């Protein structure tokens, strides 16, 4: 008998199927506004900006990029470019080998969900970009519509975009990469982004 069959057979012999599943969980009511989201994001080491109008977006992100190191490499996904227009950023080279992106200073991407209870943004793996980009860059800027706010993880997982799981990664990102492995002291930028800014867009 294969390992598979013998493990399944032993499991089958061990269970009684007498335990019933619990009713689905009813979370306490919670606000799903950008201000509550931004408080949680700040606790996770990130920064929430907004909500701002779509017309303001180009100016705000340009300012953000100018505030960084001189002439850094800034890449924006196609979805982000559609909202941003032109500025000190360039499109992700098509068919880029992720290894060629290790020097990206800022990546600007679009989030598909924002979770008020914990400051997490859902990144859909189907966005046209190398999957490694959000963890390779030095700083991550995420654009999200305030209409994508949900109160908690129950709502977030119930409202995953259709097809978000099929053959793809879907990642919840809450704040920059972090570690506290040396005497419990928090350090941002363990491997990936040292900073994370989420810009909420209204209307």
């Amino acid at each position: 008998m294969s390992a598979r069959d013998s493990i399944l057979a032993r499991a089958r012999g061990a269970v009684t199927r007498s335990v019933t599943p619990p009713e689905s969980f009813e979370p306490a009511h919670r606000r799903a506004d950008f201000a509550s989201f931004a408080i949680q994001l700040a606790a996770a080491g990130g920064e929430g900006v907004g909500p701002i109008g779509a017309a303001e977006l180009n100016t705000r992100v340009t300012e953000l990029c100018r505030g960084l190191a001189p002439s850094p490499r800034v890449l924006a996904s196609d979805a982000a470019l559609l909202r941003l227009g032109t500025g000190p950023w360039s499109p992700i080279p098509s068919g880029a080998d992720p290894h060629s992106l290790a020097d990206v200073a800022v990546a600007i991407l679009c989030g598909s969900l924002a979770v008020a209870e914990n400051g997490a943004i859902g990144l859909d793996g189907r966005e046209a970009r190398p999957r490694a980009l959000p963890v390779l860059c030095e700083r991550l800027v995420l654009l999200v519509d305030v209409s994508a706010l949900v109160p908690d993880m129950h709502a977030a997982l119930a409202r995953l975009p259709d097809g978000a799981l099929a053959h793809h990664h879907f990642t919840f990102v809450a704040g920059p990469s972090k570690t506290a492995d040396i005497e419990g002291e928090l350090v941002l930028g363990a491997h990936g982004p040292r900073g994370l800014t989420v810009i909420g867009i209204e209307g």
Partner: protein
Amino acid sequence: MSAALDRRALELLPSGERLAAHDAAVWALRAKRDAAGRAEPDFERLREQARRIKAHSLDHLDVLLERFESRAQAAGARVHFAEDAADLQRIVLELLRAKGARRVVKSKSMLTEECGLNPHLERHGLEVVDTDLGERIVQLGDEPPSHIIMPAIHRTRGDIGALFERELGSAPGDTDPGRLTAAARRDLRARFLAADAAITGANFAVADTGTLVVVTNEGNADLGMSLAKLHIACLGIEKVIPGLGDLAVFLRLLARSATGQAISAYTSLVTGPRPGGELHVVLVDNGRTKLLADPRHRSALSCIRCGACLNTCPVFRRAGGHAYGWAVPGPIGAVLAPALTESDELRALPFASTLCGSCTAVCPVKIDLHDQLVAWRASDSPRSAGSRSLGRLASLVFASPLAYRLAGRAVRALWPLLRGAPPARAWLAARELPEHPGASFRARFRARGSQQ
């Protein structure tokens, strides 16, 4: 507790400043967990929900495993089953060899620690780099992790500075956590970019969608699996849960219980390989079906490896993880080790507890940890013939007031001799007794009564 375990615990016990630093760092996590729990109105109800989901999942484990297997395969993953540690080692080595992989980056997985995967791969000529900072520290120091979420919590910044100076060329005398982390980041970034394969664990496997859920704060698992073409995920069979609705409950509990965060920085839902890549999932038994068949101890398989029971345990806080001698230390390690290993020595771990119950009080899935410790003691204590007859003698003595009084008198008279005898001497090696008042409690009580 076995003599061997006693000896090792004494050798590995932190002392002085090191003990104080360990205790403080671990207790700080417990305090953050408490604050996060209090701040979340759903917290206590989530714990009960999580307990019930796991009880139901474990009681349908075969069905969930088959469902996960078929959905993951439909998404393009290859699913393997491993009976034990040797089986896991063989499967992973074959997968790496088939792809000609030489350089492997690994993110944290307690299962692969339990199964000794790294040393096996290294013996066969592969370069395996642990990429979680804490795991990298203990790997460079050639020692095992001492905590399931903070692998290097037993090390001071001074230790790590000296280690990095020697191994990574960091500045002499530099003990700043930020700069030390930056030194590790530079070294590891190059290794991520050069890796042929990534090995990760998984915190959960969702049966309905065939999805693996990988949680980190550093983003190291995401870097590994999004750069290398080959991704091998190793997990215990107990990690499978029914659906995404259940996942929400666990994701709300995991980080709050572990570090007091509302959620960890990266939670990746991996369903099938990325375009052009390969995803292999290895589901490992290694004693878990045996534990599943044991109704008294089955719920220990509900563990989500948050580390809360370690952080609150008065024994763990003072002894440190290495004293336990197994991949998973603390109360959860003490209830899993007797079930998942054949080691007689580890069967003594349930005795290394005060039974204060704090572990049970903080467990996010409400495992009755201290009751299980008692049950292990009763069912499986490695008692010698000598200690059994001592036990019988004690039950006779405690059953009769006269025998009790006579025995008390005998012990008081012979105490100077008894305390030097081997069994008492071993017990007293790490303990202190108060000075004996010279008379029995009854005698002193009577004397007090006559004074008033």
